[in-house]
């Protein structure tokens, strides 16, 4: 058996049938339902042997195929039940395959449109808009949906991505201890009377070098008695101004 194709290559049983018909070089209009059923069954068995999970939909269609096949064996007259003519099951299958094929084919073009659109980017709405939007009226119900949140989060992430490389590549090049002392002195004004070492590391963005430089700078500031420090029982380093 030469079914080297994986089942996840197919998006459903109809897709698999189209593949099998094509592989047998049969026409979609007069394929042999026996051959198709056997091939289909063999394919499912192969998957089972490989212990791949087969979704129930494949089994449902297999049952349908077998049913078609068995009905074919019955004499024609018996398919007329209660005076109602039942459409030839193969005709129905052909109709389904044809219709499915149409949508399958068109996805190629749609996928292409989608790709082209992905190459184009929009500008985020300007922040100045916030001034013009009517003042938040907290009584107004919010008519949001989850996608609004994704879009907003997407913008946040994109912005972060944009600002990160500058931080790391350009501005965060080796800062000297002396420069760091100046930076810290400037920040001290905005800090509480006592604060922790972690507070001082907030602008380090996990840059180890900068953290070490900060530590050296703090040691110097303590030496100059601009800061005093103590360590609490949780081993947190606390600083107090001058």
């Amino acid at each position: 058996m030469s079914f080297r194709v994986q089942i996840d290559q197919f998006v459903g049983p109809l897709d698999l049938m189209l593949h099998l018909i094509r592989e047998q070089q049969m026409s979609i209009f007069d394929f042999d339902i026996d051959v198709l059923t056997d091939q289909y069954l063999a394919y499912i068995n192969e998957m089972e042997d490989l212990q791949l999970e087969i979704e129930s939909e494949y089994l449902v269609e297999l049952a349908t195929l077998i049913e078609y096949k068995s009905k074919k064996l019955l004499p024609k007259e018996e398919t007329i039940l209660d005076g109602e003519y039942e459409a030839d099951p193969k005709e129905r299958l052909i109709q389904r395959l044809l219709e499915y094929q149409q949508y399958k084919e068109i996805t190629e073009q749609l996928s292409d449109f989608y790709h082209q659109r992905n190459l184009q980017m929009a500008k985020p709405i300007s922040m100045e808009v916030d001034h013009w939007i009517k003042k938040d009226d907290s009584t107004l119900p919010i008519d949001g949906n989850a996608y609004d949140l994704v879009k907003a989060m997407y913008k946040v992430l994109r912005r972060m991505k944009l600002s990160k490389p500058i931080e790391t590549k350009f501005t965060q090049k080796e800062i000297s201890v002396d420069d760091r002392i100046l930076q810290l002195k400037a920040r001290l004004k905005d800090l509480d009377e006592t604060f922790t070492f972690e507070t001082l590391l907030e602008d380090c963005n996990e840059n180890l070098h900068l953290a070490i430089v900060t530590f050296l700078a703090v040691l110097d500031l303590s030496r100059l008695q601009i800061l005093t420090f103590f360590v609490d029982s949780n081993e947190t380093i606390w600083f107090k101004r001058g």
Partner: protein
Amino acid sequence: MEYKEYKYGIEVTRPLHINTVKKVERKDEYPIDTIVEGLLFIVGDEGLKIEQCAAVMDVTLKGMEEVFSRLMFKYQKEEYAFELVNYGGNYKFLSKSYIHPFASKLFQTTKTNALSQSALETLAIVAYRQPITRVEIEELRGVGCDMMLRKLQARNLIQEMGRSDAPGKPFLYGVTEEFMDSFKLISLDELPELPDFSSDENENLFE
């Protein structure tokens, strides 16, 4: 807002001018095209609808349409890095695709989100057959698509459009404006024609 606008007639064939008399005793004249460009710039990916814009500029829809088509034509030129598009009736500026490689470098990502084959098939069926129920989609695809429909809904590509009269009153699905934007369509009429496989002759499926 205390500025006065000049009312235009119905026929607008070339750039018009707007008189803005602002509180600040400024009195300038700016072409309507330029002002609309400015608005399009400000709203960014939100885009503008023709009605909205016509109301703000106090011109007729027809007049507004002409402004937009002039702008669309203008921005097609190579010298502009972005173009004016109309997807689903929403006008917006989008960067041209030749900017993309540089943008990828800037954002340090080469990724463009792709849609899976299942997602595309489901979308195609909804787009061509809307309004359509889940069961009808499943019949066409031969696969259950409960999860897929929810994912597409979460992604705002499809939406519920009321309920069918069929037993159980199932939801009917249709595509959204976001879908139109994602697939570069002005309206559903622009969807490519479905291939016709109804006769043996057209069947070059087996190449």
